């Protein structure tokens, strides 16, 4: 029963010990220790997922305010994604972090963020979730400001205060929910027993909207997305990978929990909140793609891409039907694997060549063919070319959108998805094209192979393979989810 606590407490304590340990343990020892801790945590998560049968109430903060952990299918999906991305990016950083300082501090916070994310996945009620949501912000902002340059510090603070702002907005909603719900335990179908037509109901629609905006900050929702493109390029590449692939997904998880498990879709379906939310998501998808398209710095481009892609997921959530919800979860996985690969390849390129702008990277495919192949494969995935991960999820999203009961957004949604896919191709593929086909005037006598170390390429390869597998065998996931999803709606 207490198994569920192990993957939470172990990495947090390990990270804390690393931070509190005053002496410098030496690079080799440090990486070995961190590696072991990461692997153990991964194993503990799997053990916890297999071994947990019922929820665990730890203690009560105050009256009716339990700290409660439970595992359902949503937790399984998100925690598996977390483990895989954290392990891959962790091993990647063992090489990458060579050119940064204060590695001990980095690994300390990295482990803590890992533990907190596990807790977030396992949280069984809104208060527990909120607790770890705040802790996630606090343990991950040191990763953003790690390099210590002035921009990085400012980016870290921006991330911190934007996230806290969002968290407090949602806390506003939690105060009201607590007084009007029997319990805040996540229950499929929602716990709010108020009709949206009543006077109280209209107030709660406002509360729902505030909470969507609040948790949406973490997921980079327009107009509070500004921290995302600032924070990602400032952070070290593996940190951006986890940030983009998993930590912003905490915002997605939060919205799933709040909308599907607390308010219930019945409450929001057809209300102005749904309309406003759909509008926001479509605006963000389009805007993110556009901004990415005209952004010259590779990591920043990827960050804008994250803004846009996250809103595919949130679009699916906002539609509120089964196909769209399945599509969202598939896209959580697909985007998680793809975007972490993209950031890791960007990191590998920065590490070996020191270049950050796309137009400086002509002929990169000749120098780092393996890395660039991985980049190309996952790019195709993100665009949505059939056998890869992105295709299936977008298919579900578009189907959900078209069959959904959402009026004009039915067609608008599908149209925006297509335009955005085009733009995705437009901002991801130039690097491939320039990289492999630098043009006739390119002098390739000077270039030699500069493939990065094994410890960098293997994580990239693993994530690439996974992203393809999601596309090849989506049925495993959809079958796993079918029953569960139908209870939600």
């Amino acid at each position, binding site marked *: 029963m207490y198994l569920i606590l192990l993957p939470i407490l172990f990495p947090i304590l390990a990270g804390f010990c690393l931070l509190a340990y005053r002496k410098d343990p030496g690079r080799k020892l440090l990486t070995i220790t961190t590696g072991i801790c990461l692997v153990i945590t991964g194993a503990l998560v799997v053990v916890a997922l297999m071994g947990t049968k019922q929820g665990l109430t730890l*203690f*009560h*903060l*105050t*009256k009716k*305010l339990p700290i409660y952990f439970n595992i359902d299918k949503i937790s399984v999906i998100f925690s598996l994604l977390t483990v895989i991305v954290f392990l891959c990016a962790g091993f990647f950083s063992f090489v990458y972090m060579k050119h940064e*300082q204060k590695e001990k501090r980095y690994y300390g916070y990295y482990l803590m963020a890992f533990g907190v994310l596990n807790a977030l996945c396992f949280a069984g009620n809104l*208060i527990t979730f*909120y*607790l770890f949501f*705040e*802790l996630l912000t*606090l343990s991950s902002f*040191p990763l953003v*400001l790690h*390099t*210590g*340059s*002035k921009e990085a*510090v400012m980016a*870290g*603070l921006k991330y*911190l*205060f934007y996230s*806290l*702002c969002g968290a*407090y*907005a949602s*806390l*506003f909603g939690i*105060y*009201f929910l*607590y*007084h009007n719900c029997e319990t805040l335990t996540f229950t499929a179908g929602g716990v709010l027993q108020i009709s949206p037509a009543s006077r109280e109901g209209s107030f709660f629609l406002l509360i729902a909207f505030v909470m969507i905006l609040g948790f949406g900050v973490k997921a980079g929702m327009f107009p509070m997305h500004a921290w995302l493109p600032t924070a990602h390029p400032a952070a070290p590449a593996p940190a951006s990978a986890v940030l983009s692939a998993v930590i912003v997904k905490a915002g997605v998880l939060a919205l799933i929990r709040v909308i599907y498990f607390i308010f219930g879709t019945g409450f929001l379906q057809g209300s102005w909140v749904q309309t406003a939310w759909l509008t926001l998501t479509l605006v963000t998808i389009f805007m993110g793609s556009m901004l990415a398209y005209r952004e010259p710095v590779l990591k920043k481009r990827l960050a804008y891409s994250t803004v846009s892609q996250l809103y595919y997921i949130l679009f699916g959530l906002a539609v509120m039907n089964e196909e769209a919800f399945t599509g969202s979860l598939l896209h959580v996985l697909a985007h998680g694997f793809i975007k972490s690969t993209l950031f890791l390849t960007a990191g590998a390129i920065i590490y070996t060549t020191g270049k950050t702008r796309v137009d400086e990277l002509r002929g990169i495919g000749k120098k780092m063919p393996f890395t660039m192949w991985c980049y190309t494969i996952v790019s195709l995935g993100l665009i949505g070319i059939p056998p890869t991960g992105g295709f299936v999820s977008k298919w579900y999203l578009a189907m959900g959108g078209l069959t959904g009961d959402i009026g004009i957004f039915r067609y608008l949604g599908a149209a925006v998805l297509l335009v955005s896919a085009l733009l995705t191709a437009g901002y991801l593929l130039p690097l491939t094209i320039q990289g492999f086909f630098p043009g006739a005037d390119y002098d390739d006598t000077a270039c030699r192979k500069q493939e990065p170390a094994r410890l960098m390429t293997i994580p990239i390869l693993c994530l690439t393979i996974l992203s393809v597998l999601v596309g090849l065998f989506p049925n495993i996931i959809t079958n796993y989810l079918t029953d569960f999803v139908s209870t939600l709606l």
Partner: protein
Amino acid sequence: MIICVILIPLLAGILVPLLPFRKRCHKEIFLEGAVILNSILVWYLLLHHSESTFLLAHFTGDLNISFRVDGMSMVFAGLVSGLWPLATLYAFEYMTKEDHENTFFLFYTITYGVTLGIAFAANLLTMYFFYELLTLVTVPLVMHTLTREAILASRKYLYYSLGGAAFAFIGLIMIIVYGTTTDFILGGVLDPLKIGDRTNVLLLIYVMAFMGFGVKAAVCPFNSWLPQAGVAPTPVTALLHAVAVVKSGAFAIIRLTYYSFGTDFLQGTWAQTTVMIVVMFTIVYGCSRALKETHIKRRLAYSTISNLSYILFGAVIMTPLGLTGAITHLAFHAVMKISSFFCAGAIMHQTDKRYVHELNGMGYKMPWVFGIFTISSLALMGVPGLAGFISKWNLAGAAVDSKNPLAYAGIACLLISALLTAIYMLSIVVRAFFPGRDFDDGPIQNVHDPNWKMLLPLMVFTVFIILFGVHSQPIVDFFYDVATGVY
């Protein structure tokens, strides 16, 4: 017995300059002993309290000086007596760098007795008497350094407080005239027959008395004395200007609202709306000023202004739950703020640095102090699992429960303030722990943590911040009983 706990600190204080101590440590042992003894007596009194009133002096008619232990006194006296020994211990170490130690300890210790006097006062007159006395005995503490700045600050403090007390005095007179008694009775003592059609006059008087006592609780626009008074030595700023003095103001307002005028009389009137708006404004105002301030202690002082208004916000919701929230924040904020003030003091004591921008990279040199400072910052922000979350939870819960739309707006103020708190507290923490790439720690090579006399109080506070955060049920239940008049 009650009079003992008020007199012991008085005597001990007076004896400090008179007794010929051969060594400094003898004086320390004497003072610490007296304070601890007194605290033990107070706790004994609280745990074995009787309902009876102790009459000290009788003037005329109903007017008398008398003491009683009821729920609110238990909370306030328990809080003060818990903090005082620790603060005294801290002061020993801190005062090694300041002059006129004897004068300082004289007044510092007397203040303990006077504060207990406020806590145990059984009627409005007694409370008023000790309230004025508190102003007088704490003026020398603000003036302590005798710089021009300090003298100006103390003068301002004196005038503000006396002026405020004058308004409060009008309230006292009105209670004598229109009330059945001046004793504190939960639910109020106003006599509807005597009031007749003068309701609005009384409401106006309430607002005036609220603002009068509000001077000590630093309600906007009467708050500028508090940041200025930060020139006093840190034990004074921490204990008096974050707990004893300012919370006497909040305590007096609670007494006035719940025990003299009565919530039935005030609930839903324009007076409630007025004071609630003032309080909400102060919450946001204090935080915004804190954001702008770069002097650490003044920043914390502005933060205190905002947090005191949290307490008053709970109080002016005027429901038992609101009072519970107010009391919870009264107690929890005391612990959190004294902890952060003591950290600031420790920094000043060890390094002579007073401004936020001088703190770069200090976190690694003074890990304990900054670790504790971080925890108290997080608690003040209201991160779940620490004390601040619980008190804000209770305040917001009371506001939701009151079904008053203005109180809903108050919740928004609380959250805006929480965000601002995060910004002004965490920017210090970030500076200390993440000084940036070009940081050179040469100039602060020799900085280190202070000795145990400073660290022990800090650790005790931290333990309580965490304890209240994760297991607050018993104490919140107790506060609820106090608010509903069980004690």
